[in-house]
């Protein structure tokens, strides 16, 4: 059994005395298992005798989806691809991509909290950026301003305002609501 000290794996067991401590010589690789993303290691903490996977406390933990697919989805989020487009290209739902995003953002916050501390900067530039998050203008517009609302169009409306009328029969055409 190999016992190198640089596995870089902390013990995830909160009852262990080496909980989240790294490079203490208590972690050893005991076996591997095969997934769609390749071979993964199983580690054992010699202090608490509890095994754990190498994906524990990572974005990929407990996911059957191949890692490449998740990485591709998250990369697409960072290169101006819309959420619905990612879902269409990768064949997953938007909720799935958002769940991956939640995990990735949690990890990113952890990275930022650990590394972005006591930065020796000389100058800080401040600015504000304006952006719409769920426009409420369509909701606020009264019933007498029908034409105005049409001009704003579907693109400017929030999801909650845009409810397409259901087709009369299965497979029929959906059309925009009366605006």
């Amino acid at each position, binding site marked *: 059994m190999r016992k190198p000290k640089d596995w870089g794996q*902390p013990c995830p067991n909160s009852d262990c005395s080496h909980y989240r401590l790294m490079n203490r010589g208590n972690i050893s690789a005991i076996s591997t298992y095969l997934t769609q993303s390749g071979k993964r290691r199983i580690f054992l903490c010699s202090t608490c005798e509890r095994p754990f996977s190498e994906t524990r406390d990572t974005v990929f933990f407990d996911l059957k989806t191949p890692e490449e697919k998740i990485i591709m989805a998250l990369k697409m989020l*960072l290169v101006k691809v819309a959420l619905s487009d990612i879902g269409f290209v990768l064949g997953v739902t938007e909720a799935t991509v958002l769940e991956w995003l939640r995990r990735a953002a949690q990890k990113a916050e952890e990275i930022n909290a650990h590394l972005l501390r006591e930065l020796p900067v000389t100058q800080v530039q401040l600015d504000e950026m304006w952006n719409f998050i769920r426009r409420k203008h369509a909701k606020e517009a009264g019933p007498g301003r029908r034409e105005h609302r049409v001009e704003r169009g579907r693109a400017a409306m929030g999801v909650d305002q845009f409810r397409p009328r259901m087709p009369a029969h299965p497979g029929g055409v959906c059309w925009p609501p009366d605006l």
Partner: protein
Amino acid sequence: MTAAVVLGVPCFFSDGFSCYLSALIEVYHTLTTFPRTGKPGRPKQPLKEPHPELVYGQVIKKKQKGRLQELVSRVRCGAKRLEELGLSISTSLLERLNLTLRHALAPLVRKSASFCKDRTQMRRRVVLFQAFYNFARPHMSLRGPLPDQEPHASGLIQPKWRHRTPGMAAGLTDHVWTFRELLTAKFEPLHNQSSSG
């Protein structure tokens, strides 16, 4: 937020938005207390004055019909220290970062249908981009030339540059992180953890 991340009191530069000065004084200030007079009445409240090391400059653009007419620089705090440091008042770096953000995140694109519907999701995207930008995305202006090497027989195109990320330039890490590394990084707990984000 910035005060929790940076060391000491840096110089702050912004546009003419009026909220920054009061926010900066709220964080970087010295309290002046007044002695009790012994007379009846409410004692005088302590006064918050800007920290002696605080430097705050504004760049105000005056436009007419969408065209820039005049650029006014105004030092609101710490003119003496700013002169000593020799820094110029500018927000150009941040304006460039704003453009980078608008090019990277679909909800921030102007006049598009892909705006965000939820503030939490928007924040998550920005946080992920922040880590990606600082540690995994090489910045072209930070790259340095590689030392001259003997050309290899196998490869025709030889790398010329050593890529660097903002995190490497700040001395926070020593290599360009892979995207997978960004998603699987593990750390020991911080004992003196300060607020972040």
